[in-house]
């Protein structure tokens, strides 16, 4: 029996699923690590919402250019064929449906593909949304990369999100350490499992699951 995926394995898996030549936005946090596993020959081009296509790798502080950062404000490089644009143009690109894939983290995803990833709803939390809502409505495919369970063991793939939404019915795939889910008009299909059986998964989630034949 296979094993649950480590964070790097999960990033590698998602990287391999991104189609050649795709224009992709990788959200801040964990999804950023996917870039490291993209095949340079794939022709995948990274978008960063602060105004760039053709973003390269994260660089160390001693190589940092303060004018060149990713959406998480980490210093990055520029690849040949890059292009810079302002924020209205960058978000027109996102909202207008031109990005092939975006990958974001999440607090919760619902069986209908609702996404909650910006606010826990806690009274003392300072809310911050950034570009997540724009990505949620804009990218052709919205993929989520997350752990399937909270530290307390609660499932994060849920019948209905209890946290405030980022976007409705937008998520098409959920990549977790124990399973990959495809959210389809027919329901939630388990595409792969890692170190867990379909039956165990079905028991731990309060969501109807479809088995891949």
């Amino acid at each position, binding site marked *: 029996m296979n094993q649950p995926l480590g964070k790097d394995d999960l990033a590698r898996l998602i990287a391999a699923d991104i*189609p*050649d*030549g*795709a*224009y992709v936005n990788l959200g801040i946090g964990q999804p950023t690590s996917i870039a490291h596993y993209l095949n340079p020959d794939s*022709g995948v*081009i990274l*978008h960063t919402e602060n105004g*760039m*296509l*053709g973003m390269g790798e994260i660089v160390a502080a001693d190589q940092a250019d303060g004018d060149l950062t990713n959406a998480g404000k980490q210093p990055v490089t*520029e690849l*040949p*064929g*890059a*292009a*810079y*644009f302002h924020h209205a143009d960058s*978000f*027109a*690109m*996102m*909202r*207008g*449906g*031109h*990005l*092939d894939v975006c990958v974001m983290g999440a607090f919760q995803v619902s069986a209908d593909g609702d996404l909650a990833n910006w606010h826990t709803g806690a009274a003392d939390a300072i809310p911050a949304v950034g570009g997540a809502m724009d990505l949620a*409505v*804009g990218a052709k495919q919205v993929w989520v990369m997350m752990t399937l369970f909270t530290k307390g063991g609660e499932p994060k793939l849920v019948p209905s999100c209890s946290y405030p939404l980022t976007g409705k019915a937008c998520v098409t795939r959920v990549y977790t350490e124990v399973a990959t889910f495809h959210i389809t008009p027919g329901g939630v299909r388990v595409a792969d499992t890692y170190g867990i059986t379909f039956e165990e998964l079905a028991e731990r989630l309060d969501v109807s699951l479809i088995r891949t034949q």
Partner: protein
Amino acid sequence: MRTRVTDALTAVTEVRDGDTVLVGGFGMAGMPVELIDALIEHGAGDLTIVSNNAGNGDTGLAALLAAGRVRKMVCSFPRQADSWVFDGLYRAGKIELELVPQGDLAERMRAAGAGIGAFYCPTGVGTPIAEGRETRVIDGREYVLAYPIRGDVALIRAHRADRLGNLVYRKTARNFGPVMATAATLTIAQVSEIVEIGELDPENIVTPSIYVDRLVEAPR
């Protein structure tokens, strides 16, 4: 998805009868003549053409009109000294005309490309252009509601491209190209020269490659 470099005729093979085609250019500046010639050869008809003008002289858009391929023109300024082809078709009742103010034409295509559902525009309030349309007073000023104009295909002309599909334009020939590139399902660009990746300065790209599906080199 990755931009494909091809010849003009191959580039336009996906145009279908009945398509809405956005055609760049302000008069002949920025007019994608080689792509239009290929479209004429390709043969698609019953087209709706969105372009600022309705053809000049006998080449480019005028030639497409003369070939009888266009059912309807959506434009801001059809009547010109050299628009005899359109004028003849229009007076003979052989072509429909939808007149859209020039800024609305640009902004409605931008809205299509930017995922905006509709917008309130001050242009044309109190004029025949606003008749029958929804209006609203916002902060004491009256606006007319305008909807996006989407293309199945955009045919545009730029100056140079790199092999990824990044485009730069030349002088006022830039005009509608960058906006149309964002507003069509399939964007086909002709350029005078295709250069290697890295030869265009990332600061100066006007149309990023994400908006360009087919690239045709047409030296001039």
